[in-house]
């Protein structure tokens, strides 16, 4: 299955305050903004890939290429965004406060896909069940963010230096999401 980077303009990341220090050499994978279209494009490519998977079986011969080390991490990041979507559908009152957090997860997916070269194998996450009172839904989001933060730290430590700033930023974003949720 192929996930392709959806086309999107590179939006400026919001920032405030202190004068920026002299710029270090820009890493090639500095993330930019994303759009809902880009995110859905990645999901759409996932869905298309699931039908193409059968074709691969018919080709025969040769071992399948080793999955990219970030495959599982990208899938779980897509899952985090999906968890927020499902939560908003069940609890619309949470949407206003938490949509920036959901959008951050989408931007992380976009940046990750871009960082690994725009192509990786992954699987679509199951639709989460978010029935229950809002407080319970928020607690479930916090638990998912906490696990996601720890996964991002592990990925940051395990991956090549080129990917470490992006993965570290994702870990830090998830740590900051917990401040909003608890």
């Amino acid at each position, binding site marked *: 299955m192929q996930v392709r980077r959806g086309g999107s303009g590179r939006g400026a990341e919001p920032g405030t305050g202190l004068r920026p220090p002299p710029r270090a050499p820009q890493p090639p994978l500095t993330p930019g903004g994303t759009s809902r279209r880009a995110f859905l494009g990645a999901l759409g490519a996932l869905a298309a890939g699931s039908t193409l998977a059968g074709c691969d079986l018919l080709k025969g011969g040769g071992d399948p290429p080793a999955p990219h080390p970030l495959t599982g991490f990208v899938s779980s990041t897509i899952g985090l965004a999906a968890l927020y979507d499902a939560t908003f559908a069940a609890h619309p009152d949470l949407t206003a406060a938490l949509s920036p957090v959901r959008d951050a997860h989408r931007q992380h997916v976009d940046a990750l896909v871009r960082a690994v070269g725009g192509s990786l194998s992954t699987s679509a996450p199951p639709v989460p069940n978010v029935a229950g009172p809002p407080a319970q839904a928020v607690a479930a989001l916090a638990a998912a963010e906490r696990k996601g933060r720890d996964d991002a730290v592990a990925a940051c430590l395990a991956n090549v230096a080129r990917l470490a700033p992006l993965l570290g*930023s994702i870990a*830090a974003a998830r740590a900051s999401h917990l401040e909003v949720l608890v």
Partner: protein
Amino acid sequence: MSAASALAAAMMAEHEAIFGYGVVGAHLDRAGQDTARAAEAAHRVRRDAVAVRLAASSTPPPAARPAYALPFDVTNRDSALRLAIALEEHTAQAWRRALAETAGEDRRLAVEALMEAAAQATRWRRTAGVRPSTVPFPGAPA
């Protein structure tokens, strides 16, 4: 940039944050001062941890300057909170840069510092009423 120079740069950012919080605290109420004190203490712990890492690589730790130029005048609660947010963003940027230059325990120190700075920046944004209180890529160049 080597691991040692990236860590030294992050340590200088920690020096600046420690200095800056001395200014921030003076303009906040009791609760704000408590938060500022806790944040400053966290930066001191981080600074000392970097000094230990640098010593392990025989790199002299950069000394703090007696004073630092503030990016804007701090005269009241609003500007103090803006400075607090800026201090955390500044340290987050230094630690994010260090991630690409480090490995192992040095990188762990860097990612933990980046997470703490991002979380503290969000706490300050919430205190200041800045929305959204999170940014998608903490530490990324503005």
